[in-house]
């Protein structure tokens, strides 16, 4: 059985192809101005890599903020539902799945079947999400991927009050004027983000195992800060940004079986 999951994210489109619940291919591209076209291309290429075409796919499930814009789908699943499914598939003991994407952070509480039982979403502000790191990297004039490793070199923490990207940026400027080092400022940025994400998770309850997915899970600086704030280990999969698409593809498997 071939199933596909498409994650129509705010910044990028992801696709995962499964054969009997095993990942055989994945693909990703920027959503851009025409997310439907982008998704069409991503799915097409992911299938081509494994010598398949759309006609071989039994069921496509789509998720993400732009799920209605997916080029083709048989069913939909909420982002939170997809996170829960993928989190428990990747780490069977996962009971809390945190997803930090480009513009949203959310946390899902789930049972051993990967069914969500509660969720929280950040309060419409990018300070707890990936877009914040991007803006701050610009302010520090470092590459996005350098931010994490840089922050790990910090010797101490200097708190910033990041309730919003714009205010966060002015706080960073204050630190620059105080001539704080770049590693310390980078650490301050991740700490502030982790503070916001963790307070959201605390409202839900920290039930181990805690899994972090979404593009930001690739950032070692954020993962380190989040571990400190939550006081528990935070597990990350190899391809965290594909969690939504993976969850959707797994839901597609369930839906085929039910038919």
């Amino acid at each position, binding site marked *: 059985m071939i199933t596909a999951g498409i994650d129509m994210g705010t910044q990028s489109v992801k696709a995962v192809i499964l054969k009997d619940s095993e990942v055989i291919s994945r693909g990703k591209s920027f959503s851009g101005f025409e997310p439907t076209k982008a998704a069409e291309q991503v799915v097409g290429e992911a299938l081509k890599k494994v010598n398949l075409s759309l006609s071989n796919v039994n069921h496509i499930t789509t998720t993400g*903020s732009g799920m209605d814009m997916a080029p083709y789908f048989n069913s*939909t*699943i*909420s*982002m*939170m*539902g997809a996170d829960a499914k993928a989190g428990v598939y990747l780490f069977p003991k996962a009971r809390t799945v945190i997803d930090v994407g480009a513009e949203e952070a959310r946390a899902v509480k789930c049972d051993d*079947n990967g*069914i*969500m*039982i*509660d*969720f*929280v*979403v950040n*309060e*419409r502000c990018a300070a707890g999400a990936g877009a914040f790191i991007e803006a701050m990297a610009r302010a520090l004039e470092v590459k996005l991927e350098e931010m994490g490793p840089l922050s790990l070199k910090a010797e101490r923490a200097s708190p910033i009050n990041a309730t919003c990207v714009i205010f966060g940026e002015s706080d960073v400027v204050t630190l620059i004027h105080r001539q704080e080092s770049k590693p310390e400022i980078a650490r301050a940025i991740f700490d502030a983000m982790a503070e916001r994400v963790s307070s959201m998770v605390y409202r839900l309850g920290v039930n181990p195992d805690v899994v972090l997915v979404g593009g930001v899970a690739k950032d070692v600086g954020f993962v380190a800060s989040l571990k400190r704030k939550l006081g528990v280990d935070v597990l990350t999969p190899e391809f965290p940004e594909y969690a939504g698409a993976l969850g959707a593809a797994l839901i597609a498997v*369930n839906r085929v079986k039910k038919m």
Partner: protein
Amino acid sequence: MKSQSEEKKYMPVISQKEIDELRNVIKATSQRIIAENIERMKKTDTNRPKAMQYFDEIANFGTREKEIRAAKESGKKVIGYMCLFAPIELILAADAIPVRVNSGWYDTSKLGDRVVPVEVCPMVRSTIGAKMIGLSPYLELSDALISALTCDGMTKLGEILSDYKPVWAMVLPRVKDSARSLRLWNEEIKAVKRQIEALTGNKIRQKQLKYAIELTQKATKAFRRLQELRNGSPVIMGRDAMLVNQTYMWDDIQRWTEKTEALCDELEKRARQKIWACPPDTPRVMVTGTPMIWPDNWKLPTLIEEANPQGVLVADELCSSERLLYDPVGVDEWTMNDMLKAIGERYLMASTCSCFTSEDGNEDRINWLLNKVKEWDIQGVIYYVVRGCMLYAIEYTRVKKVLDRLNIPVYYLDTEYTREDVGQMKTRVEAFLEMLTARIDI
């Protein structure tokens, strides 16, 4: 009435030209929103009860505005109120017309931003904005306003509106279950009675007051009947029931009661024939929190009932809907004294507003919610809060705790007086409904 030239405490000076332009634009939007809301309600339940037609007409403010205007010309007074603590029976007994004046217009909240900071409750800002441009027919027609001092926003809203109208503040004790509080509140009831009598020139007598109490008792009976019909398989969509509830805030009470009874007759017949407004296994949702005022602030009920998967609102704990008339005035002896006492008790003790507290917390609200959840077979609760609504935001933590014990999912949804966040809200509401459905079957 205060003259326009008099220096205002809060309100800025705006040119008549700007007022007219803004009012025309916002009024046109409001008319469009009203029509759209009703169309969407018709689309959700294609076989909507025939009796809803009356409430659709009353939902268009113009019809009732004309009636009230005519009554005013024949000498009647209109008394507006913000919170549900204004004793309607006293207003009716003095042959005056009660109307609630809280604003549900999104666009006027942006005008309110010129007067108070954006952190302030959007319902307060919107009501200020509506007054700035004379948008609300009921606020404009009011000869005086009763302002119960409930939350901070409402307390100051009364003060701000006193730039235009006489505002009678009623001090509301925050602890209900004490003889001291009730004594104070009964004094407030008597004071507002004197003010109503002075404004109308009508002394409130035993006979008129008894008649007024009986009138609202009948309305309560019809109201309760409608809510009872929402228990069991869905015979009416939540939005339709909420609209019926809400029109009580400005409609003629006797006519409203008759029309609601007629609707209930129709619904009972449909229930017998098993004609449902949506599939009987649709997740049963309840909303609680900040009031949702027609016409603009209808977005959450709309999202829930148009979502995929769909939900149906079978109950709410909102002062704009189910809290309006849930409890009747209970009179033992029809003496003036007893009636006034019964009114005092009904308005204070029966309220589950989040402004109250006690040694045990705001247990009346908690118990009301728990009973409703159990008896109405609620599968999920959406806790709705607008930014700046502190009391409801704070009580969420308590409500979540008690609902968790019952294993009832509750989702905290915060929003603003704006149409722009509907996309994000949809994502959340649909995830929540999906979760409720998944509990049944995935």
